């Protein structure tokens, strides 16, 4: 029989997360505790769930328009104006997607032609590189540095640009490092982007989980809105991962093409989730703030603990991850994580799952209760003492 598989797909490496997930699953040990998840521990606030249930009771079980419910798009525009001071037209500049992940995928497909280069700062979320390849683009990796607190500098960006560069992916607040980009960092990046006539895909799914100043979107920097594809969603801010609710805002022309792909591939985002999302935007501000404060306390606690144990850890100001260094133990991230799992039954994710330059680091999630974090830190402490 002829080879049934696409060579492009076969050549894409499976996610490093997957590998670690399999090891944990194989152990199947109830004693194992994990700091390995990339989703909130909170339940979706009840009033939001209730609205989803109510929409089902009312029989709202049909497709919505391809771009999503108009009321939801309008609420998203109100929200973005209120929180981040950017204005979009709900009719032509917003598309509701199945999580932020779909927006990443179809955004790249709408923009890229074969050979176009996409600058991807790593460590970062696992899907940018494979989705770029699937869309025919060429990933150009920029290795971010711990000494810069894993922010992208204008110099690093400038050095990666070639005549074929079309797009920069800007994932801040960042998974896995917890790094943020502040206004002055973004202004420096914007200058380079405009100078070289590039586009930016800004993945701001963790925007609400910022612990220093309020998050700034690059779309708000003068001259940037027309070259920015802004991705956000409900998963992290409202603890709604399973609802699969994301959205993307951008220039009419790009959203129009993205909507075309979305229409053929997906049809529309889940209707129940769209109704719940309207409620989240209308009445969810307090829930977001309450969860943000809880994460903030856990973040301070973890940074303090890692420093106590003697593991270097820059203070992350975003998302729900800390990214401590293990360089002084003379082990790879993978070895460290594997031994920690075997010896102390604690699952964490090696930094290398998010790019080669994650070597020497671990991603520690604090989407867990303080009690769980304490238990886990006790195990890390014990493990480090044996080294």
């Amino acid at each position, binding site marked *: 029989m002829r080879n049934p598989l696409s060579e492009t797909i076969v050549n894409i490496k499976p*996610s490093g*997360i997957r590998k*670690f*997930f399999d090891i*944990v*699953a194989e152990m199947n040990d109830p004693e*194992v505790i*994990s700091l*390995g*998840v*990339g*989703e909130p*521990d909170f339940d979706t606030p009840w009033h939001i769930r209730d609205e989803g249930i109510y929409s089902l009771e009312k029989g709202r079980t049909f497709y919505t328009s391809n771009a999503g419910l108009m009321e939801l798009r309008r609420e998203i525009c109100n929200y973005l104006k209120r929180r981040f001071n950017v204005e979009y037209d709900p009719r032509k500049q917003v598309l509701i997607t199945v999580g932020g992940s779909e927006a990443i995928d179809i955004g790249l497909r709408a923009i890229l032609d074969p050979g176009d280069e996409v600058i991807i700062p790593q460590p970062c*979320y*696992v*899907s940018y590189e494979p989705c770029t390849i699937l869309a025919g683009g060429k990933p150009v990796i920029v290795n971010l540095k711990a000494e810069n607190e894993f922010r992208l500098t204008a110099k690093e960006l400038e050095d990666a640009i070639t005549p074929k560069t079309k797009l920069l992916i800007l994932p801040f607040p960042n*998974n896995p490092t917890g790094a943020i980009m502040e206004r002055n960092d973004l202004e420096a990046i914007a200058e380079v982007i405009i100078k070289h006539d590039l586009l930016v895909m800004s993945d701001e799914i963790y925007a609400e989980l910022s612990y220093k100043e309020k998050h700034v979107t690059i779309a708000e920097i003068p001259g940037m809105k027309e070259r920015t594809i802004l991705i956000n969603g409900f998963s992290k801010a409202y603890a709604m991962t399973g609802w699969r609710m994301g959205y993307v805002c951008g220039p009419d022309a790009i959203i129009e093409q993205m909507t075309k792909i979305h229409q053929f591939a997906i049809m529309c985002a889940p209707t129940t989730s769209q109704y719940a999302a309207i409620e989240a935007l209308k009445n969810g501000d307090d829930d977001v703030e309450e969860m943000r*404060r809880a994460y903030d*306390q*856990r973040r*301070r*606690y973890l940074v*303090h603990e890692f420093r106590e144990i003697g593991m270097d850890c820059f203070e992350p100001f975003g998302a729900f991850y800390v990214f401590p260094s293990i360089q002084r133990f003379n082990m790879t991230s993978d070895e460290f994580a594997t031994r920690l799992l075997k010896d102390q039954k604690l*699952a964490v*994710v090696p930094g290398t*799952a998010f790019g080669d330059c994650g070597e020497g680091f671990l991603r520690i999630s604090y989407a867990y209760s*303080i009690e769980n974090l304490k238990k886990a830190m006790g195990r890390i402490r014990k493990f480090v003492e044996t080294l």
Partner: protein
Amino acid sequence: MENIREAILTTIEKNSRIDLSELAIRLGVSEPDIANTLEELESEGVICGYHTMIDWDKTSIDKVSALIEVRVTPQREEGFDRIAERIYNYPEVNSVYLISGGYDLLVTLEGKSLKEVSQFVSDKLSTLDTVISTATHFILKRYKDHGTIMDTRTEDVREKVSP
């Protein structure tokens, strides 16, 4: 930055046993600042006590709780305060609230048995001069109290590792 007093209050409202050094780390302020603020809050009467939530139903100790609606005749000059005071001074009374709507005072109280609670209502409460009527509701099951769900499921159903 969130107001530090509010941050302390919302945190210890959920866990009053948290130690000062941990609270200091979690809120990003110094331990002496925490101690001073707590002292202030106590002396101002903002913090009125540090209690423990107990689900007595899970013990073999018998307890009965009741909510009692009380209608009273407000008194000249004192309004409801005087009668409220007469009621809250009984140690078996847990709480007394002045309520808007169909009745005036909501009294919650605890006793060892239905009989004990009924006796209190008929002997002590109903006989007070200004009390016009009472309606006693016994609590059959406590689902949630002070923001705590009594039978919580704490199982983490998330995948153990995810991107």
